[in-house]
């Protein structure tokens, strides 16, 4: 069958349509990727502002750049298995690859300069599933949302003229994000400890434990140290790497231990706001003991290539509706892609 010929007008219209369809799809694609909405917060913007603050250090994490790898085991006592069906909460041992770090993007920052410290852990279950968690040695997060985090990073960037953050910008930030005041109040009275081993590390974000019946329980968790707190000393303040040296020395004498303590929310407790601490009377469950036996410098260590994405969770643990979790996951992935690429370039293996 031979189709009737098209008039010139018909042909022009149809050609326009043929051009228009792919063009519309292309525009939608660019929009989905965030290229047409520069004011929208993306993982790229989060990572670049961290890079501005900490400087560019190819091959290192964009935040918590300075750290050390640790290896150990989580010995579960089974207490948490009533709340979560995750295999690692059944009685028994699960191998753990962890990392201690200090906040900030500078891998050679003096330890004393950064009061906020972190512990990241990857639990490797026998069934192939993993639990990855990044915790911080503070009781609450400074801001409740990714937008707040971005604004905080932007407001605290050093002013090129003075080399210090602009107090006016910081003031404007606090006015817009008053939740930050709780963190400021904590930071003011906080005296850092002399050791990662005596720090208590907190999940800050809430998660949901899923039990065997499928019921969800809103929780937060903490790693509570067995080692006693000792305030940072005058000598520590002059030693750039006192945390790493202290950890190595302690591990030479024996393993270091923390209890994994799960805090269970009560109805009405907010799981979507990491700036709000739940009341102190909430039920807690000691789920077992983390035993760290060995430390390895991060460049050669097994933690270097681990992305401690807080959304890599085994069956039995799920995300809450805390908006920071998605932002952390997206930004960690971006940082991971950048640094693994840079590391490969440094060793000569790259595309």
């Amino acid at each position: 069958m031979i189709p009737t010929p098209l008039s010139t007008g018909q042909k022009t219209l149809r050609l326009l349509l043929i051009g228009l369809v792919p063009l519309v799809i292309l525009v939608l694609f660019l929009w989905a990727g965030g290229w047409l909405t520069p004011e929208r917060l993306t993982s790229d913007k989060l990572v670049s502002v961290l890079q501005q603050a900490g400087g560019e250090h190819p091959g290192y994490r964009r935040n918590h750049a300075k750290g050390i790898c640790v290896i150990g085991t989580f010995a579960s006592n089974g207490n948490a298995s009533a709340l979560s069906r995750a295999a690692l909460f059944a009685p028994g041992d699960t191998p753990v690859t962890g990392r201690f770090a200090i906040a900030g993007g500078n891998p050679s920052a003096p330890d004393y300069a950064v009061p906020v410290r972190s512990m990241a852990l990857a639990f490797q279950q026998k069934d192939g599933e993993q639990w990855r968690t990044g915790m911080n040695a503070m009781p609450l997060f400074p801001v409740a949302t990714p937008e707040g985090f971005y604004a905080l990073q932007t407001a605290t960037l050093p002013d090129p003229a003075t080399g210090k953050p602009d107090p006016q910008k910081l003031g404007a930030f606090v006015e817009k994000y008053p939740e930050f005041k709780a963190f400021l109040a904590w930071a003011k009275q906080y005296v850092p400890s002399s050791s990662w081993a005596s720090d208590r590390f907190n999940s800050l974000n809430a998660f949901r434990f899923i039990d065997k019946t499928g019921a969800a329980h809103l929780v937060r968790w903490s790693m509570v140290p067995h080692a006693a707190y000792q305030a940072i000393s005058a000598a520590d303040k002059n030693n750039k790497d006192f945390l790493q040296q202290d950890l190595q020395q302690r591990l030479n004498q024996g393993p270091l231990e923390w209890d994994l303590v799960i805090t269970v929310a009560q109805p009405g407790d907010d799981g979507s706001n990491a700036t709000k601490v739940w009341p102190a009377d909430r039920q807690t469950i000691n789920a077992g003991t983390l035993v760290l036996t060995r430390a390895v410098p991060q460049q050669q260590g097994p933690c270097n290539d681990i992305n401690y994405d807080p959304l890599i969770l085994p069956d039995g643990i799920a995300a809450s509706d805390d908006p920071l979790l998605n932002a952390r996951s997206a930004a960690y992935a971006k940082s991971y892609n950048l640094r693994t690429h840079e590391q490969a370039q440094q060793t000569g293996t790259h595309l």
Partner: protein
Amino acid sequence: MKHVGYFHPALRVIHWLMAAAIVAMLFIGVAMVATVSSLHSLLVTIHKPLGLMILVLVVVRLWLRFTTVTPALPSTIPAWQRGMAHLSHWALYAMMLIQPLIGWGMLSAAGVPIALGGKWLLPPILPVNNDWYAILRPLHTLVALMLFITVLLHLAAALFHALVLRDGVFASMSGSRRR
């Protein structure tokens, strides 16, 4: 050799199923790496099983493509256009096959469990290795962009056949035999 006017019905079904899946996948991919909203984890959760589905479908499709008779292009089409048509089709097949494998490989190299939902995991196809990840991760983006551009060109060419040339090429994939 037998002459046919249409692709095998199963190939036509798979073609349109994959068209929808691949376009969705490209949009999911570009959105999930950019967004910091709650869409991020939702899209990541969809991306992996959908990628596996595309891989399975493309294997079935290639098998059907090699075992069924396909319609010849009309003789009115100049030789260079035939060349382009064949080249773009094989490029599309190659990318549809290799892209899910790159994704699977890069997640294996990253040491990440590849969750398909619930307790279902895909086994790793590469050992945990930073160098492999550093090669495969940017390659995954590159192939996605090439696939996206080829899909748009394929779409424009198909529309050109359907609306201007009206030579039966579009109908060979879209149509059912008119009685």
